[in-house]
């Protein structure tokens, strides 16, 4: 019995479709977008689509990007925005694979990135750059702010996007006098078994929590400006593992399991299964109160002089199919109106990376008139307790060792 003619034709059509969809990409444009003037970049980007890969774990951020940013991008520049939810570590691996495969045209145009993911991307040559000098809105940023990203020199390979700071969220009606530092936190956890937990170290927020305990348990962040050394780290991190193991039996589920990401911790907090949430978004809690997900009595707090603050960025992969569009978007994200909208707790609550002293008139007023709400801490309090991030080598070491020491119980 043979395949008859009809089936052969169908098979051939299938093969053609497969081949065609693989080959059906716009021809690769070899001209380097960095050599163009801004007006030329705008013209080139018009009518195109920009694909932006970003962490998709917060639906409010997703909605803000899909509505506010996308609308403005289309209106002012004629560019369509396609948002792809993807963890930073996943898209860095993806672009890294594409680089080893010499894939000259990838599928992502802009990446939301910082920290150890930026370090890996920059060191492997995965990013187009330097690019930030091309963007008009960079004039509104204080250059001193964007020299280092978790200890790696930025050198214009990524464009600032926002300013995050780590806060804890809790219900002030349930906890009228919450812990102020990690010593008090430990005592609180032990006194309230099962009511506290943190995401796994592989999650961005969980990793940040562990870093702060690291600082607090070993003399503070200032000790870690030195370059990473494996042996010194083993000594320095011992108090951290001790702290985490001491509180472990009093954590949620007796510390045998942890929420695998921030979204799962959000669920526990919102459903009342734990009493603390944590977030890099200073103004997010206020927004969640407004959205009806948090009771109105929720407040944020920072641990005394141990609150991690960082700037997060956007970057363009080396094989972006639409680098002109990517630059337009990166620049738009620095627009004062967009930054103010982002800063508004009703949308997101992430603080601005712009130097407000460089703003005038309406732009400046839009920041001053922001109502950050009672749940957001005053700017002075946030600034007074902020500590910068350390070299991302520490970050990786902490993430790798957490599983071994805390999750699986090696000494």
């Amino acid at each position, binding site marked *: *019995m*043979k*395949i*008859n*003619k*009809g*089936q052969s034709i*169908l*098979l051939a059509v*299938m093969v053609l*479709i*497969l*081949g*065609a*969809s*693989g080959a059906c990409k716009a021809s690769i444009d070899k001209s380097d977008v960095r050599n163009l003037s801004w007006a030329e970049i705008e013209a080139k980007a018009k009518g195109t689509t920009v*694909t932006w*890969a970003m962490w*998709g*774990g917060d*639906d409010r951020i997703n909605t803000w990007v*899909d509505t506010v940013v996308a609308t403005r991008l289309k209106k002012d520049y004629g560019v369509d925005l396609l948002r*792809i*939810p*993807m963890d930073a570590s*996943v*898209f860095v691996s*993806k672009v890294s*694979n*594409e680089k*080893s*495969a010499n*894939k000259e045209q990838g*599928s*992502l145009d802009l990446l939301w990135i910082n920290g150890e993911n930026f370090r890996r991307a920059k060191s492997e040559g995965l990013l187009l750059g330097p690019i930030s000098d091309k963007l008009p809105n960079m004039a509104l940023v204080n250059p001193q702010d964007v020299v280092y990203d978790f200890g790696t020199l930025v050198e214009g390979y990524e464009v600032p996007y926002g300013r995050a700071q780590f806060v804890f969220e809790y219900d002030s009606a349930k906890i009228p006098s919450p812990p102020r530092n990690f010593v008090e936190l430990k005592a609180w956890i032990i006194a309230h078994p099962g009511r506290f937990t943190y995401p796994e170290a592989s999650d961005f927020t969980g990793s940040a929590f562990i870093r702060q305990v690291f600082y607090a348990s070993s003399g503070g962040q200032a000790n870690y400006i030195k370059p990473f050394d494996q042996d010194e780290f083993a000594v320095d991190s011992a108090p951290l593992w001790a702290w985490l193991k001491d509180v472990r039996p009093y954590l949620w589920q007796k510390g045998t399991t942890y929420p695998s*990401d921030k*979204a*799962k911790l*959000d*669920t526990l*907090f*919102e*459903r*009342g299964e734990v009493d603390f949430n944590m977030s890099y978004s200073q103004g997010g809690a206020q927004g969640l109160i407004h959205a*009806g*997900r948090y009771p109105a009595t929720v407040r944020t707090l920072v641990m005394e002089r141990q609150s991690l603050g960082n700037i997060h960025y956007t970057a363009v992969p080396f094989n972006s199919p639409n680098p002109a569009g990517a630059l337009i978007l990166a620049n738009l994200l620095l627009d004062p109106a967009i930054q103010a909208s982002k800063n508004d707790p009703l949308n997101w609550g992430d603080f601005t990376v712009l130097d407000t002293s460089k703003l005038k008139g309406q732009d400046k007023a839009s920041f001053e008139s922001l109502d950050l709400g009672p749940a957001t801490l005053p700017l002075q309090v946030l600034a007074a307790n902020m500590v910068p991030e350390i070299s991302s080598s520490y970050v990786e070491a902490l993430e790798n060792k957490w599983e071994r020491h805390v999750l699986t119980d090696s000494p």
Partner: protein
Amino acid sequence: MIKKTLLFGFLAIVFVVPVGLLGLQSLAGSWSYPDLLPSVLTMDYWGRLVSRNNLLIPLLSSFLYSLGAVLLSLVLTLPAAASLARDRIPARDLWELLLLTPAVIPAVTTALGNHYWLSRLSLTDTPGLIVVMLCFYSYPYLLRSLTWGYRLLGPELGAAARNLGAGPVRVFLQIELPLLWPAIFSGSSIVFLAAFSDYFLVSLFGGGVVPSFATVIVPALASSQRSWASVLALVFLLFPLIVFAGLDLVLNKWQRRRSLT
């Protein structure tokens, strides 16, 4: 009588109540312990379905690549199933087993390796590849169904028709296809469902770039937004249901018109 009541009670609780829960959750404005029923009911989340216009493309994309997987599977398995049912093949059972392995051996073992060389050939992140991969990992269900169908069918009718002068295409379309239809339909439904519901393979080979409804709903399912997730889960369920029901109706009509009886 008691036994029967217990039995039906058990069936209802285990198989029906969960889906009812999903429906109830989708209408819940606020529902937490210890309330047995939501304290606030709302149509807001269903309304969001209408206002969020970025769901249509993933839904359509999932439908199309699942359909593609079914068509490709049909093309590949129809001849093979006929052969397995009728021809004398040395070590036939072993070949049948081998052909069934892609759906049985955990997909993750071969998918990661396939992703490696396919990405180096720049074939990943395309809908065509997703069709091929979904077909590869689920065609065995169709193969089993068709083999069974062909075995039931037997070669006599086809042989008789050929003796009367009918060409192979006519024999297939007018004699065998109508009788094979139940096997084709049930096998194809499984392939379609497996493809439509798939998250791992689609996000691996599509790189997050090829739109997929499964990829859209996973972050929602893992989030604290249970009501919105329930709405999405119900759409995820209703869509294939409607497809099957519609298809069944249409093809039963076609079947009746062309039936031998």
